[in-house]
């Protein structure tokens, strides 16, 4: 991460603008508190200290930004801020369509929309989009039951 990912200017800019970043050695008590068993481990934590997203293993620059965007979207979703979550998921899907996070972002964008108006058609639209763009994704399979919503 030090050699490749963190020096990347897109990564640096994203982290500086959106996150408070802390480096923690794996032999520190905080690593035990967060049950870290392998490095690198990245944990996204909300301002109250609650974990909302985790990645274990190296991430190249092109993967780290969409992974963190997805994590921030999930944070807003978990806090019930559905209107704030949607733009983060949308950015992952539109700016990083080739990333492995993109189908997951589309799925949770649909979840956020459903949570806002309780309309299952949102999930049907989500499934249709996933099936059209990521037919082999596990997130498409997870959305499959909503494909038959009338």
């Amino acid at each position, binding site marked *: 991460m030090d050699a490749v990912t*963190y*020096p990347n200017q897109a990564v*640096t800019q994203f982290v500086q603008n959106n*996150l*408070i970043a*802390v480096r*923690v050695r794996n032999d520190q008590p905080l690593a035990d508190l967060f049950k870290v068993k392998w490095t*690198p481990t990245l944990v*996204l934590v909300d*301002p109250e200290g609650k974990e909302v997203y985790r990645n274990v293993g190296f991430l190249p620059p092109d993967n780290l930004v969409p992974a963190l965007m997805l994590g921030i979207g999930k944070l807003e979703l978990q806090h019930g801020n559905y209107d704030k979550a949607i733009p983060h998921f949308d950015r992952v899907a539109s700016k990083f369509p080739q990333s492995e996070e993109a189908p997951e972002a589309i799925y949770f964008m649909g979840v956020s929309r459903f949570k806002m108006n309780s309309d299952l058609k949102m999930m049907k639209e989500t499934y249709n989009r996933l099936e059209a763009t990521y037919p082999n994704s596990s997130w498409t399979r997870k959305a499959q039951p909503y494909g038959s919503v009338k």
Partner: protein
Amino acid sequence: MRINSVLMVAVVLVVQTMLMPPPTSAEGQEQKIKWADNFDQALSLAQAQKKPILLDFFNPN
């Protein structure tokens, strides 16, 4: 006449370059991630700035 005009433009450009202030140390340097010192400090900053915290657990060896 044409050569004189070209020379005049060249002289003006050289003088302008000489009069420009030197670049500051920040210019041209790559930005680096500013890491908070510890988790408690990060929590305070996160609450003040309403931003999530990124914890990077690493092996120093």
